[in-house]
Every structure is written in C-alpha cells, then in structure tokens.
C-alpha cells in the first residue's frame, strides 16, 4: 500500500491505470498460456465442484477455481472451503 493508494481510496479516485493493466495482463496471460478459454475454465470449474461435492459439502459462494501464473508457470488453483463432511461420504468407501 502506498500513499497514493490511500489517497485514491480517500478521494474515491480510480486507481492508477498501471495496476489495472498489470492485473488484466496477468489474467489474460494465464488463459493464453494454458490455452483455456474462460468458457472452458467455467465448465471445468463446474465439473470440479460436482466431483468434490460428492465427497464433502463445499461452500459454493466462497469456493474458487482459477488460473494463476508466476514465472511463466501456470497453475490451476482450487480453493474450496469445506462446510462439513457429507455423511454418505464415509459410508461410500464401504470397508467398515
């Protein structure tokens, strides 16, 4: 956080455009580099949620699956807060 950022907040000014540029670039490059369109990522996100939801109850509003990129390495990062384990999940393994 810089003095400028604070002033921007206080004066309700738009943040400097360089920050916006950096964030937009990082996002678009994560997609470019993985060759995943936003639509495909969306579909994948839904399917991942579906699979995980079979085992644990997840908080869909808080959950997120996204691409992150650093040093030319792109990773798929899933952050899925668990509310509580599903009762059926433990039974599903079936070896008790």
């Amino acid at each position: 956080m810089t003095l400028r950022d604070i002033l921007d907040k206080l004066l309700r000014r738009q943040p400097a455009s360089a920050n916006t540029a950096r964030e937009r670039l990082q996002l678009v490059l994560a997609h470019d580099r993985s060759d995943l369109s936003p639509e495909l990522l969306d579909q994948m996100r839904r399917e991942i949620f579906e699979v995980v939801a079979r085992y644990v109850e997840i908080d869909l509003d808080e959950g997120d699956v996204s691409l992150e990129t650093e040093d030319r390495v792109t990773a798929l990062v899933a952050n899925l807060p668990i509310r509580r384990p599903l009762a059926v999940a433990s039974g599903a393994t079936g070896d008790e």
Partner: protein
Amino acid sequence: MAPTSRTILICSGKGGVGKTTLTANLGIALARLGLRTVVLDADFGLRNLDLLLGLENRIVFTAQEVLAESCRLEQALVKHKQEPNLALLPAGNPRMLEWLKPEDMKTIAGMLEEQFDYVLIDCPAGIEDGFKNAVAAAKEAIVITTPEVSAVRDADRVIGLLNTHGVKPVQLVLNRVRPKMMANQEMLAVDDVTDILALPLLGLVLEDEQVIVSTNRGEPLTLNGSKSPAARAYGNVARRLQGEEVALIDPSKEGRGLRAKVRRLMQKKIF
C-alpha cells in the same frame, strides 16, 4: 564459421514496437565496437531496414538472388559507407514469401555466420510464416516490447514459441518508456513487465523524438555518437551483449525537481 558468431533474432509479435529501429541501431553500435556485423532483413513483406540505414539506393541484389544462386553473397551484401564493419543483406521481393522455407533462412544465416561476428535478423511482426522462417535461423533472440498490455501479451506469445523452438537465451528490450507516466503509475512499471514475461532485461529505451529525426535522415542514432537517451540505450544494449556490465537507468528516478520528489514519496510502500 567465425568461432564466436552469434545469430540473434529481433522479434516482438506485435507490429510497430521498434524491431527495425533496434536492429539498425544495434547493428551500427556493434560495428562501432569493432565487431563484424550483418543485419538481415527477414521482413520480406514490408521491408524497411534498408531505409532506416540509409542504404535503400545501394541495393542491387537481395537474399533472393543469393538463394537462387544467381549472384554471390558478396554481391548482395551492402556495406555501410561510414561504418564498414556493418553490412545489410536486403530482403527479396514480397513474392519470395510464397516459396521461402525455414531451411532457406538457415542456409542464408549459415553463410553469414562464416564471415560475421554478429548476424542480426529483423523479424516481421506476427507469428505466421514470416516469423517461422526467421526463427528457424535464430540461435538466440531479443524480444522487444513497449509497456502496453497488447504489446506485452503478444510478446508473451512469441516467448512461448521461442521456447518451443529451443532458442536460447531470450532477452528483453523495453522500448518507448515514458518516465513521467511510469512515475505516475499510468504506465506498466519496468518490474511489472520483466516479472510477467520472466525475461532478463537487456535494455530500456526511452520514448525519444530523436528516433524519428534519425529515421527521416536514414542515419541511425548510434552512427554519429548522439547523446540522446535512445542513442545511449542502444549503445548500452550492444555493450551488454558483449558481456560488459552497464547499469540500467531507473525511469522512476528521472527528474530532480520537487514534483519528482513528491511523486517518489507517493509511491513509497508504507505498509
């Protein structure tokens, strides 16, 4: 082959970001360091390198005749009058694009590597056939970009392709930097670009009106020992290629006045 010959592709992805200007100025700067240098115009569609070097009226043969073996390489090379260490191998006519293959570019580069210390290839914009031909001949590359989202995005594409072609090392030149805009955080910072592209920074060239003046005259800035910021930057790129350690300018530290001081204070991370 000259034992130390280096073949460097100068490319960008996006058009108009300064490839040809860099090739011309770097060519002259290397030649002035006493290195036998040739610049190869690989932009057959829209050739311009001859014009920037002021050699457009001295072209008799081109790479096309050399490949067709209707002239010798020596006949096609255009030597720069004031800087005899520099030669240009002009691009043939645009119809060459129809039959030119990556192998042909390799052949040409191979011939040049026998006589020159540096072979600089001015790459066309884009990532289509023109790029693919040029990249086939390259051993290393300089990617040039401006601090703008579209140019950086396209540079990233090109870097990915250079990696798959095994071109190494790949270094970055950041062009048309405006220190004031950077200081006001209205332009991507130098670190933003180098972090995002994850390339070592070989040079940083400021936006400089003298570039246009020199283009008008067909005399690259590095030719006459100009002291303009861009001229110094191109000269520094040449010295860094030669392994010399030359400090980079810090655009955010440009300016000494009160305004500049306030600007710096505003940017300081406080928590």
